């Protein structure tokens, strides 16, 4: 099948920052994104788990964004401005997509 090069950006960030991040992504020109729930994790700021949480304060989500390679820098700059002061992880992977006209 006809496939096209793209970048897959995955940003794990606190749930309270989700809408700020997605706003920044939209501003940087992405056409879409997907948000996955996160159950728990561990990092320099310790371990946490979603079980029994009643507060939004300590949960995280993972925002996945597929983009055309030439848009990567804009996206990373926009995302970084949001993520910078916050805990969280940003990874970028090469991938190929079907239906490139969507991105």
């Amino acid at each position, binding site marked *: 099948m006809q496939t096209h090069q793209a970048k897959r950006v995955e940003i794990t960030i*606190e749930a*309270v*920052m989700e809408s*700020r991040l997605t706003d920044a992504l939209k501003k940087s020109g992405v056409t879409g994104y997907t948000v996955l729930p996160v159950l728990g994790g561990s990092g320099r*700021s*310790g*371990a946490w*788990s*979603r*079980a*029994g*949480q*009643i*507060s*939004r*304060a*300590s*949960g995280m989500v993972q925002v996945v964004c597929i983009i055309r390679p030439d848009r990567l820098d804009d996206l990373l700059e926009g995302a970084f401005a949001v993520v910078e*002061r*916050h*805990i969280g992880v940003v990874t970028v992977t090469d991938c190929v997509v079907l239906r490139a006209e969507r991105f």
Partner: protein
Amino acid sequence: MDQLLGLAAENLISPIILSFALGVAASLARSDLSIPEAVAKGMSIYLLFAIGFKGGVSVADHGIDGRLGLALLAGITLSFVLPLIAFALLRVMTRIDTLDAAAVAAHYGSISIVTFVAATSVLESQGLAAEGYMVAVAAAMEAPAILSALWLVARGGDGARKMEPNLLREIMLNGSIVLLVGSFFIGWATGKEGLADIAPFIVSPFQGVLCLFLLDMGLVAGRGLREGGRIMRPGVLAFGVIMPLIGSVCGLGFGMALGLSTGGVALMMVLSASASYIAVPAAMRVALPEANPSLYLTLSLGVTFPFNLTLGIPLYLALAQTVNGG
């Protein structure tokens, strides 16, 4: 004094407190007991809806008295001022830095609705009435403390830090405030008739749901103590017990000045003494992400909440009764 001890003992062996203790014990023992996040959130929605609604019905029932406006004002003032006291105290008693101190202070200006709910059921079991609009006061006290904390940080020289856009709207319209105020108005509008329709849902099973909810809070608090225990230095721990006492005295003053009923004074004390663990932590993660969440969550949920739940509430109630009569 005897009466105080009696009340404290009675309070301590209620299903509510023991459920909380079970949660703490289970998580300290590293049991895998846990309540799904969705269920915990569902119970908190239930509790907010029920407490707001009943407050509204009580206002519909007793008519609104001129003190409502003043009580709201008092609550807002307390919420603005208590963080300043807490901040000063933290700088004196502990070595934590400005940022962390401001973040912790915000929690103690704001309120814990579950502590309020637990106090309400102690009042009920003692046959003491309170002003129905105290739930509105509770809602009004949630947010102002956050602004005080941000001001404390800005003043501290970190001038570049400007208020996050949208944060104010987010705080004012956070789910628990909207639900509490909304159900308060629904209760007010529908009154006793409305209550009759849904009492078997929001009144009869209330205490039981509160047990399971406190079981979950115990699990979360215990987990916090297990992981955040190391940072609970003596000074910090002491703050977690002294600050609610100071808060309660401020609440007592305002409550008396307003001429609230004994139950109302006790609730004002409880609100002032309690520390937020939902709205404020979320706001802090957005506005002051560099502040350490283990510190404020463990302090609020692991120290002050259990203190208020077990010893604080009977103490505040006894004080209110002594000073205010009733």
